[in-house]
């Protein structure tokens, strides 16, 4: 069998995922090409790559989303493959197709698979064809031409409460909960308008609302020889406003028997659409243990390290090997046997005490945690700004252990060790969430965080005690004494400076 050459990879991304892909390439002896917008000139991914090229101004539309520029840079640099990371162009079939047309190996699924699974209604039909349960609802898009009366009729068949969701959707945009028929026309208008402005497609579909669901997803790898390997499920129910913030694996809600059923269903969906490379099947799990196909993400996911720590498999390396045409040699039984319990916290440059508003700025000091069972996947650099143009995630902190309590204990320890100064981060929020008795007991669903945050009613996460205030007073005063008349670093002047410092201190008393 002849393999497709992958000797130099252009990474069409930035931040931690660009760093992650560079690391996998380096482990495999593959050269790397980074790209950067103006503000990312000195970013970590640029400094780590073998080569780096500018692709334009800071707004993503003018740089990281410019397909023709990226293809031109790939060709000019002599790259033979492109990794899209996640976000940006990762699920854009035009980009996957443009790579193929330019003779570049796209490290990801085919444009056909991206296009098919990118339509929520087409993906539902694929799941139904594979014999996988879907949330009861409409199988076809409801565009603007479908009248309110027709939608009401469809809704009656589905049952209330229900969800209106954007066909082209994601990230909670164009999504509405509808409790009664009276609410439907208004919600339909709002969902269509939101979907239209967010995705350029105002079509929505109707789904029954599953009460108190957990978000369970199945990572899988699929090669070009028909082999599909699903992995132990990930639990991603800890979401803030439909965005995952904590992920873990395995799920406390999934028994080995349910794991068999849900992972084999996920593999069936992938086979049904001839899927290749890394992908994730997302499901809802209801209170009675029934699961429903939700959607497929046709890319590497943010939370992939959780699966890597549970399985011991390097998913990014396998993405490259699959793109080369290598057959999967992972033991499917081993892939479904957890070797550890792992958890991830997505650390954002956001101020949890100011309604999670982005907190861009210069990171003046950065010290990531280390030690047993800790992994920090970060794209941040001390001394550099967190740009305002992109996702404010600065790091994914992953810990693992023999069991969940050990993984959680290590996460608490790692969060405590994590030092980020100059910007606000969501670390205090995670410290709080990890101590919540319901979280510790595994009693949660996708509404958990929003409900718990509402209960807090704005009590600050960072609540210094009286002792902390006194310690801060002591520290500030000592800092002023030791630093304010700055300690001279030029050796010859040092003794005089010390002396003068002392003299001045005396004079100020």
């Amino acid at each position, binding site marked *: 069998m002849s393999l497709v050459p992958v000797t130099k990879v252009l990474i069409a991304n930035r931040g931690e995922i660009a760093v992650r892909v560079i690391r996998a390439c380096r482990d495999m002896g593959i050269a790397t090409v980074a790209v950067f917008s103006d503000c990312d000139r000195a970013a970590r991914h640029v400094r780590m790559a073998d080569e780096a090229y500018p692709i334009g101004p800071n707004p993503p539309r003018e740089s990281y989303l410019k397909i023709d520029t990226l293809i031109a840079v790939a060709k000019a640099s002599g790259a033979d493959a492109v990794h899209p990371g996640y976000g940006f162009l990762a699920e854009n079939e035009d980009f996957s197709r443009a790579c193929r047309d330019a003779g570049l190996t796209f490290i990801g699924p085919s444009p056909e698979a991206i296009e098919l699974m990118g339509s929520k209604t087409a993906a539902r039909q694929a799941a139904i064809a594979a014999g996988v349960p879907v949330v009861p609802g409409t199988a076809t898009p409801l565009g603007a031409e479908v009248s309110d009366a027709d939608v009401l009729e469809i809704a009656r068949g589905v049952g209330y409460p229900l969800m209106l969701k954007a066909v082209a959707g994601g990230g909670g945009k164009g999504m509405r909960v509808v409790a009664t028929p009276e609410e439907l026309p208004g919600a339909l208008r709002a969902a269509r308008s939101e979907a239209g402005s967010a995705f350029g497609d105002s079509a929505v579909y109707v789904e029954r609302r599953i009460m108190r669901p957990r978000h369970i997803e199945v990572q899988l790898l699929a090669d070009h020889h028909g082999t599909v390997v699903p992995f132990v499920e990930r639990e991603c129910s800890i979401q803030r406003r439909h965005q995952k913030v904590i992920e873990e694996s395995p799920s406390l809600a999934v028994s080995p028997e349910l794991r068999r059923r849900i992972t084999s269903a996920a593999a069936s969906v992938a086979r049904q659409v001839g899927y290749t490379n890394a992908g994730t099947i997302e499901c809802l799990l209801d209170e009675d243990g029934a699961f429903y196909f939700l959607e497929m993400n046709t890319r590497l996911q943010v939370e992939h390290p959780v699966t890597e720590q549970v399985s011991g498999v390097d998913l990014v390396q396998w993405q490259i090997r699959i793109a080369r045409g290598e057959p999967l040699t992972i033991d499917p039984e081993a892939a479904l046997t957890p070797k550890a319990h792992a958890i991830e916290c997505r650390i954002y440059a956001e101020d949890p005490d100011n309604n999670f508003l982005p907190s861009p700025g210069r990171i003046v000091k950065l010290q990531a945690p280390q030690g047993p069972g800790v992994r920090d996947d970060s794209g941040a650099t001390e001394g550099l700004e967190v740009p305002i143009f992109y996702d404010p995630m600065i790091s994914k902190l992953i810990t693992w252990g023999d069991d969940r309590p050990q993984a959680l204990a290590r996460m608490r320890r790692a969060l405590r060790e994590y*030092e980020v100064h100059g910007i606000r981060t969501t670390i205090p929020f995670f410290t709080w969430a990890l101590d919540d008795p319901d979280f510790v007991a595994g009693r949660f669903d996708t509404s958990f965080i929003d409900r718990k945050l509402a209960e807090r009613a704005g009590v600050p996460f960072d609540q210094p005690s009286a002792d902390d205030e006194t310690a801060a007073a002591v520290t500030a005063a000592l800092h002023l004494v030791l630093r304010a008349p700055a300690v001279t670093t030029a050796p010859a002047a040092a003794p005089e400076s010390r002396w003068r410092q002392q003299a001045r201190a005396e004079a100020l008393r």
Partner: protein
Amino acid sequence: MQYTLVIGGRTRRVHLERQGDAFRVTVDQQAFDVHAAEVDGRALSLLVGSTAAQGEGRSVPAVVVPGRMPGELQVAVHGRTLPVQLVPDERSRRRGGGPGDATGPQRIIAPMPGKVVRVLVAPGDEVQPKQGLVVVEAMKMENELRAARAGRVVSVSVVEGQSVDAGAVLAVVE
């Protein structure tokens, strides 16, 4: 040495007596014996004991970085960050300008890692607002760091040709 600080809306008076690296620090009425060691200009290790003779005790890892407002420090102790506002004493208040003036000594800080290409002032020099003090080169650009307001240079902590980290104090003007 005496400082007036505002922390969490409360005014704290801090008095220090120094013996080498050992300090007797009094916050309002509470006295602590503290041994202080600098780590890198931002990080400090404090050992807080009950008596000076002990010389060691409870370990308090601390980090101090400049705040966004003049005279503000962001002080992290045990991982919690607290803004600390420095209140100028009577002397510096008299010397200062109008009520809108920023207060406290001006610490001229390297905004990014770079190399000092020129030092334009020496300790003792009187400087005018916007007068250039130190030129730092970073990313092939020269940045002239200037005084925010009038004052006297009390120290210059770098020499030409020296590499500096982001956040390093280059000079202090009072």
